[in-house]
């Protein structure tokens, strides 16, 4: 049991993981001409759901209508398939390392599981809002944007991490 526990805490050397991720990103740009992403798939599913429930509203509202067109379904989107892949790949990696377990809450011993879940939800909500302003999240804007030398990507990277450091003091109880 001890061995399993120890094995589940073994991760790739971060520089090796970084090289692999960089080569994957390079391959992705070489094949598709674009980088990797994560929030795009969620946006597609929301656009699809809103279009299903209230089609007239979706077609006339400025943001939803940007992603609706007659010739293709919003879910038949590159990022939707890529995101399904993210779940599969992460599950495989976790399975091999013995990290796939029944649902549990990871939190600092100084906070309750409930506090962790409240802040996780709020954080996700803010990240969701921010990713739309940023036209991409850490993957699509910061990482892919920086690698392709887009000014917006470089700015997104500096701002996401800069803002994290700026606010870190106020939320230190959640983590340390």
């Amino acid at each position, binding site marked *: 049991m001890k061995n399993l526990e120890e094995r589940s805490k073994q991760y790739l050397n*971060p*520089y090796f*993981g*970084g090289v692999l*991720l960089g080569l994957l*990103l*390079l391959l992705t*740009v*070489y*094949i*598709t*001409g674009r*980088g990797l992403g*994560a*929030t795009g798939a*969620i946006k597609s*599913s929301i656009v699809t759901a809103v279009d299903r429930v209230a089609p007239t509203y979706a077609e006339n509202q*400025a943001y939803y209508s940007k992603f609706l067109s007659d010739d293709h379904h919003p879910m038949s989107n*590159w*990022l939707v398939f890529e995101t399904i*892949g*993210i*779940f*599969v*790949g992460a599950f495989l*990696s*976790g399975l091999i*390392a013995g990290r796939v377990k029944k649902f*549990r809450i*990871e939190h600092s011993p100084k906070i309750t599981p409930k506090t962790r*879940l409240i802040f*996780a939800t709020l*954080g*996700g909500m*803010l*990240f*969701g*809002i*921010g*990713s739309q*302003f*940023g*036209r991409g999240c*850490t993957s699509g804007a910061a*990482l892919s944007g*920086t690698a*392709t*030398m*887009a*000014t*917006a*990507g470089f700015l*997104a*990277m500096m*701002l996401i991490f800069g*803002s*994290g450091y*700026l606010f870190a003091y106020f*939320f230190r109880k*959640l983590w340390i």
Partner: protein
Amino acid sequence: MGPLISQGYINQEWNFVIALLLGVAFGYILEASGFSSSRKLAGVFYGYDFVVLRVFMTAAMVAMIGLVYFDHMNWIDISKIFILPTFLTSVIVGGVIMGLGFIMGGYCPGTSFTGVAIGKLDAVFFTAGLYLGIFIFSTAFPLIEGIYYGGELGPVTVMETFGISRELFAFLFIMATLMAFFVVSLVQKRVKKIEV
């Protein structure tokens, strides 16, 4: 000859199969690097674990050097690569909100998916929050449209913004990255260890 798809070397129908496979590799690397743990991720902001900085900066550096090299060898038509357009107001507002979300939630979107995949309930809640946030943004869009389209500069690159060559920017980025690796290794030695 790259990018392969936009140049017609790969059939559109294969596009989604490729998307799935690249996604599998993406998820695998993120999880194997430890990105499924919010406490490891948040370590970058408190100095007890710099895995985010190390993986992220190495990846950006490798892909950047790769693209410079591919361009130099004429293996890729760099003008056909998608350049994220800059809307200065919008990216500043978005970046700051994302940083706040990161420190509160402990994940970013891609990493929260890997947390969900191995059974972290906090990652499930973070992902639910993403849905909520994107829904709120989309619905409130008429009110915030001005910010979203604010400060439009078009699809500019750092070469145009800073007036330097692609190669020089890559060189400066590598130097800054190596410097960051050195500094964080010093910081990590001084910060109290936290077992996650």
